[in-house]
């Protein structure tokens, strides 16, 4: 059964891609949940459309590049505006996300051509190429390094920013660096996961892990395990049932969430 599945090169590539992306989602998701940034990452996902649109307008052939550049600018802009504190940040993020989405949709639908881009909504992991897998390996390395270097500081900031600052942690730089990191992860994986589901994959494993963890190590490692498990099982189930991969992964991640919720409630 599995022999047959792996005789298809696209299934091998998809499996490798999931083994690379899902642990990153599990890991980065822990801090997104801890810092209550779910809205932020969702907005970033939606801004991918605008990034593609910007690339199309400027005639950049590789829309991944324009997505990444736009994503980083968008993330830093959101941070900047949130810091000004003029309005509550969830409202602001909502406004900017809707604006970016609308702009992207408007531009991409010009001349009725949106169908060319609709794949980005649900993503297609089966179409990944080896060059793109190399990109993911580099991303994997970058995020892992960043994580070891800054996890303590990010955690400290999430507990109490002023207290962190009094211990000479540069709060602004860390927050911006983390936002850029989320932008990189989202933009480099959105083609495979899809705009509609990417936030679910970032949030669900960490949220599930939070239901049952007492310390940060449990939190991180359970989240990574849940993420890889739902990724791989989701891929296999989608292969055998002939359904889209992304939604199947999210369904499995949701089941894990409800299971941990029920289990963790009695703690």
């Amino acid at each position, binding site marked *: 059964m599995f022999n047959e599945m792996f005789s298809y090169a696209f299934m091998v590539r998809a499996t490798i891609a999931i083994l690379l992306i899902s642990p990153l989602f599990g890991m980065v998701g822990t801090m997104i949940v801890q810092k209550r940034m779910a809205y932020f990452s969702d907005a970033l996902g939606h801004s991918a459309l605008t990034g593609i649109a910007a690339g199309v307008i400027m005639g950049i052939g590789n829309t991944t590049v324009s997505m990444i550049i736009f994503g980083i600018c968008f993330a830093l802009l959101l941070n900047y505006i949130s810091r000004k504190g003029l309005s509550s940040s969830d409202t602001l993020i909502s406004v900017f996300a809707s604006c970016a989405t609308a702009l992207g949709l408007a531009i991409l639908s010009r001349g009725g051509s949106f169908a060319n881009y609709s794949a980005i909504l649900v993503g297609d992991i089966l179409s990944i190429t080896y060059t793109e897998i190399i990109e993911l390996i580099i991303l994997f390395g970058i995020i892992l390094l960043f994580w070891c270097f800054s996890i*303590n500081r990010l955690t400290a900031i999430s507990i109490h920013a002023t207290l962190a600052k009094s211990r000479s942690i540069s709060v602004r730089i860390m927050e911006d660096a983390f936002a850029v990191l989320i932008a990189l992860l989202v933009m480099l994986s959105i083609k495979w996961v899809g705009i509609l589901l990417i936030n679910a994959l970032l949030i669900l494993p960490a949220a599930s892990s939070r239901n049952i963890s007492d310390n940060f190590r449990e939190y991180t490692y359970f989240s990574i395990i849940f993420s890889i498990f739902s990724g791989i099982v989701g891929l296999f189930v989608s292969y055998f049932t002939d359904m889209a991969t992304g939604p199947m992964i999210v369904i499995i991640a949701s089941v894990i969430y409800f299971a941990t919720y029920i289990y963790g409630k009695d703690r």
Partner: protein
Amino acid sequence: MKKIIPCGFHCIKIKDLGVSFGDQQVLENINLHIHCGQISAVIGRNGAGKSTFVRAILDEVPHTGEILFKNKMDNTIQGLRIGYVPQTVNIDRTTPLSVYDMFQSFTGKLPILVKTKKEHDHVKEALAEFDVEHLIDQPVGTLSGGQLQRVLLAMAVHDTPNLLLLDEPVSGIDKNGMDAFYEKMQYLKETHDLAIILVSHDLDYVYKYADNVILIDKTVTAAGKPKHVFESDAFKNVFGKGATGEVEVSANV
């Protein structure tokens, strides 16, 4: 615990400190000398600028004037290390952070993704000074107010600050906890070479334990020994005469 006698030669000078938000002048002309080995209590009515004063010392809000840390032995100016204890930290019950994780995230280099026996023992030792070493593996969200405060204190004095800055740290703590807290302050000032600035509402404790009292109402309206400040007109204007009476009764007990 190694005993360090406060030398009395370090002095924190606050010169002409002022803070304004837009057009509104919140603090102005604050001039103070804070000596190591002393507890200076900051009191004042609500909205008098006590918390802004703390935030200015922490450099959290833009301010005019300067804060110097001076060694009177050789008249050199040094960088001021501040151990800060916030009013509260908002951690909900389900946050997956143990006391070890919180301590290590603020003070340690080893990523909290791993835990070594050496680091664990190190944190435990620091917690032991405040009698909370048994809480090391407990989730932070499940601690009581008093326990959390002790952990925060242990974090604040962990790398020998010159100034311990506490912003109303005893809110939500019962009387036993208050006594224990102020005795701990007394102990800290006697055993560590640091100055303590404490924002407080508890006038009778301030009267009993503080070496200096600073009454703030936009600027310093009275400062000096507790008795001196508590008998000043400025104090009576803010807290009324009743407060002084109460304080004297409890101070005599």
